[in-house]
């Protein structure tokens, strides 16, 4: 697939520049693996009839973790979209949080079980609550960055979207705002070449979403999203640019969606099994694992340790969430307005 080898603005083998220790690299890999296997567990449970809905990160893990590790999660903000499982884990949400959300248990942290799974949000972790209409977060992200600038903070704001969502008007409006005021926003497009069933060539007439950056007077980057280290190298440049006040970046990672759009979709209607099988050859988990092994950052033993930890964590999360109660029916009527008389 030609699409999986996108044009690059920098070489992809600058491990020294990345400034990552082998320990960092293994943490990246572990977060990817955790996201992948959590996602796989959710599909199993969905197919077993234990929950009605799952929407996947599978294929996007390296892109998200590469971006995440370039950020300072103690002060940076995320306006996510529904595939950002690996990113929100990196921002501090836990497998238990995710499984509670997946099973719609009482007090699950994203929405107290009001939203479908995949609609992330947590003030504690600086993840702005997200919705299903795609693109709205692109118009909000400049506001988050603007508030930080007004207070003199050097916060960077990342907002995610698929390439399909970039057709929305709010995407244009958000890019325009951020570039006018040189706001510290990374517009993170995870281009998996499909908007549910519609292929990229019917979504846009261009190869790279980041080509649009020039029209906004901002930096545009396209990176291969299969290798977390590659993504990190590029993301760090974008984050540093934003943090020093040199403006936003339209940051595109080329990825492949390994699953149907969601558990309610059947991708056999619009893409061949051969095409999907070819994505497995560039599976970000295996690509990144190999990269780490080539760098001497991951031994087989370490890999196994990580896999054991991930599995234990997912089992714990599953048990925890399954034992948790559902929300009380009365909670359908709470959280509409702040308590009467409260003031900000």
């Amino acid at each position, binding site marked *: 697939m030609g699409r999986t080898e996108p044009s690059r603005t920098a070489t992809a083998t600058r491990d020294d520049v990345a400034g990552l220790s082998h320990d960092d690299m293994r943490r990246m890999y572990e977060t990817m693996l955790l996201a992948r296997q959590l996602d796989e567990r959710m599909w199993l449970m969905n197919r077993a009839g234990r929950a009605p809905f799952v929407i996947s990160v599978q294929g996007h893990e390296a892109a998200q973790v590469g971006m995440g590790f370039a950020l300072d999660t103690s002060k940076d*903000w995320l*306006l996510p979209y529904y595939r950002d499982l690996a990113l929100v884990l990196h921002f501090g949400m836990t497998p238990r949080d995710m499984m509670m959300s997946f099973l719609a248990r009482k*007090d*699950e*942290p*994203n*929405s*107290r*079980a*009001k*939203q479908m799974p995949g*609609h992330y*949000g*947590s*003030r504690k972790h600086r993840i*702005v*609550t997200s*919705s299903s*209409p795609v693109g*709205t977060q*692109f*118009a*909000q*992200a*400049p*506001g*988050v*960055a*603007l*508030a*930080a*600038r*007004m*207070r003199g903070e050097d*916060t960077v704001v990342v907002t995610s979207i698929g390439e399909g969502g970039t057709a929305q*008007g*709010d995407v244009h*409006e*958000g890019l*325009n*705002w951020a570039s*006018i005021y040189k706001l510290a926003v990374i517009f993170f497009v995870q281009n998996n070449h499909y908007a549910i069933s519609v292929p990229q060539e019917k979504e846009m007439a261009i190869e790279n979403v980041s080509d649009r950056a020039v029209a906004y007077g901002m930096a545009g980057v396209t990176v291969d999203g299969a290798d977390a280290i590659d993504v990190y190298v590029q993301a760090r440049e974008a984050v540093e640019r934003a943090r020093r006040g040199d403006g936003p970046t339209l940051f595109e990672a080329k990825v492949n969606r390994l699953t149907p759009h969601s558990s309610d979709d059947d991708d056999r209607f619009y893409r061949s099994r051969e095409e999907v099988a070819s994505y497995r050859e560039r599976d970000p988990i295996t690509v990144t694992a190999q990269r780490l092994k080539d760098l001497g950052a991951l031994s087989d033993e370490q890999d196994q340790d990580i896999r054991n930890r991930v599995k234990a964590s997912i089992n714990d999360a599953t048990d925890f969430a399954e034992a948790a109660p559902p929300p009380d029916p009365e909670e359908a009527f*709470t*959280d*509409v*307005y*702040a308590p009467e008389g*409260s*003031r*900000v």
Partner: protein
Amino acid sequence: MATKLLIEAIREGLMQEMEADERVFILGEDVGTRGGVFRVTEGLLDKFGEMRVIDSPLAESSIVGVAIGAAANGMLPVAEIQFLDFIHPAMDQIMNEAAKFRYRSGGDFGCPIVIRSPYGGGIHGALYHSQSIEALFTHTPGLKVVAPIDPYDAKGLLRAAIHDPDPVLFLEHKRAYRAVRGEVPDEPYDVPIGKAKIVREGSDMTIISWGWYLQESIQAADDYMQEQDATIEVIDLRSLRPLDKDAILESVMKTGKVLIVHEANKFGGLGGEISAIIAEDAFAYLDGPIVRIAGPEVPAMPYAPPLEKAFLHDKDDIRAAIEKLAAY
């Protein structure tokens, strides 16, 4: 106490809250150098600078979107939509985002934004500078909607709206900006959201209204009361969501007759909701049909003076309805 125009009261309210609280800033089309197309924000740029008085691009969805984002990160934005007629591109941000932030985050995120917007007709603004589409917003749980016409209420409700933890649509009748004057204290104060105001006390009939038509209603009631041995209670709703149900029911239980007057078209309008509340909770007290005076069922206000006049109601129309209802 000093008397001020509606527009002066709103400007003073904005100025004082920006002085008092650094989290407050304004954004919108032409709000800076030009001071707004109606001059509501005149002088604010000079006083507070470009960081807090932001001339936005001509793009309503992101005016609201940026306000939402800034509010999520601790600010208290006051966005201006230049005419309510132009708010439609921002509907997704208002209805799917701002109104649902609290609910969809289980109370983790509020959305303390104010969206100010001039509305209403009678100024030769035609289809796209005259609309009264408040019912689109009052139908949306999670939003608050206020529409003060008295300068005192406008200043106080604006302060309450800015510090409200939830999104507030603040509607300003543009015909009233320089036509309605009233006593306004110099110091800041709150008028609570969700409370109606009785502007004329009476016992024979209740008129419920807001906005410019409240002015017409007061005149019609005063004229009628000068000539007839009867008293009419006139209620200014001020807040359209939440609605002051208690004030409405209490008055109706006293008078037994209700006339609802609004500029927006009748079908699906807020008058229908008010009628239903009365029918559900005060049916036994009614001595006559609930009467509504409302805009016609045409897409929007037409331009030519005779057409605009035909669209609008005035105190004579209201007077005629009063007499008809009084006969029951």
